[in-house]
């Protein structure tokens, strides 16, 4: 299965992945209109420290601790993609407790959000398309 992979050697810490993620999630056509004056809450997050930076988003683990831990069944696997059914999430955050990558976060309404690879909305991950330096790639690796 194709996944998003991160190579910190090329990450500039520019955070465009975060903005492209938020833009994709907005489902709007123009980024300026979608994000102007908005404090974004993306599903991919840059970690940066001392000149090192890299983006972290859901790894879509084959043995996902978050899915196994989910108390409602809101987190499930569809064709290898770990998907959150927001309507069924009650915001207990057991998944946040479980994810070893810190890749699950809270959305504005208190339920969880995570990277679902944009496959349903945009075909392929917007963060990868928006990365200016190929630090993020979307490819098959085993």
């Amino acid at each position, binding site marked *: 299965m194709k996944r998003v992979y991160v190579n910190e050697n090329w990450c500039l810490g520019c955070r465009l992945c975060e903005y492209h993620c938020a833009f994709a999630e907005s489902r709007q056509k123009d980024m300026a209109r979608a994000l102007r004056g908005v404090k974004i809450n993306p599903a991919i997050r840059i970690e940066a420290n001392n000149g090192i930076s890299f983006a972290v988003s859901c790894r879509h683990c084959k043995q996902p601790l978050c899915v196994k831990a989910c108390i409602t069944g809101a987190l499930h696997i569809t064709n290898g993609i770990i998907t959150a059914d927001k309507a069924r999430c009650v915001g207990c955050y057991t998944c946040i407790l479980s994810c070893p990558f*810190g890749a699950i976060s809270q959305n504005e309404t208190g339920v969880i959000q995570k990277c679902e690879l944009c496959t349903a909305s945009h075909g392929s991950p917007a963060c990868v398309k928006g990365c200016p330096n190929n630090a993020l*790639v979307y490819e098959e*690796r085993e």
Partner: protein
Amino acid sequence: MEYVIIGNSAAAIGAVEGIRSVDKKGTITLVSNEPYHTYSRPLISYLLQEKVTEDAMKYRPDTFYTENACRLIFASAVQIDAKKKRVLLDNGQELPYGKLLTATGSSASVVPFAGLQSVKNAFTFMGLDDAKALRAALKPDCRVLIVGAGLIGLKCAEGIVKLAGSVTVVEVADRILSAVLDGEGAKKVQAHIESKGVSFMLSAKIERFEETRAFLSDGRQIEFDVLVTATGVKPNVDLLKGIARINKGILINEKSQTSATDIYAAGDCTECVDVSSGESKIMALLPNAYMQGECAGLNMAGVDTAFTQAIPMNAAGFFGLHIISAGTYCGEVYTCAEKDYKKLFYSRDKLNGYILIGNVEKAGIYTSLIRGATPLSSIDFNLVCRHPSLMAFTKTERAAKLGGEK
């Protein structure tokens, strides 16, 4: 292969998914003593808050049993014949098994207070039926007394505070959530819950009940209309008495095997080794239940699998204030008690446990340090104390986690 699973909650579902990931042919029979599609027990407080509907409490989709080719029988198992490899049900049915999983869960452990029988409106808060019964008894002006300020008692309080006139929680210990929080953290959470209209009486021992009145050992009395006892849970181990080794819970190894041949156990009815302390204990938690169940399922289907990462852990929110904690609270302590509350417990180069209140972001990174027994000397522990982050790991480790160079 004939698989029989006694239970229909997280551990049982985990077992079904574990079996079906490798064995599509064997027959699976689930025995449920509740007449419901598999549902998530922790959601009963959300049901009372109307944050979920009963339908939305289903732990798996409606198609689950058909898709996984399972037979679901609504009955109670009354006896296991380990020699003949049969399970006897209360409806008289006998189920032969090749491999058996007991995922019988736990029930409310009600302290036998004197005079409890005199209380008309007394409830526990474990299952859907409990929640429905309690809901029916609540009236806008009624006074509710909850005995026990553990997770169940407090989730119950949160669930009903808007449905009742008043809610008072009585706790014998000197703090709330004594199994989950330290004293300082407990105070913070208590203050928050109190601000939402719940009253507490701590270090308060109940001597006896008289109909709508509770008498405390210090002489105080509490009037109430509805009583909820949430004084703990006990594992349902009776079926395996005399068949398998039982301590407090059914003893299982890392393969979820009991001491009896072809009998596995998983979930709240078991006890196993907590890797954060090395002690064998009951960890009645949904994530552990699922993973033990899945591990049992895989082993029952012949795949040698070990689940060695059971630790106590909790994620809970009360009126919007979130708590995540895991592991064992021993060793040296890193404290950050600013706006958000954080405590990390570590010793011998390992993280033993942690408590986060408020900001729970990326808590799983701490959990993974406990589960993986990661040597703290191999990471930037100062950084990880301040912010749980992958940055704290070495470049090689980060590349392994995130992909890095091909």
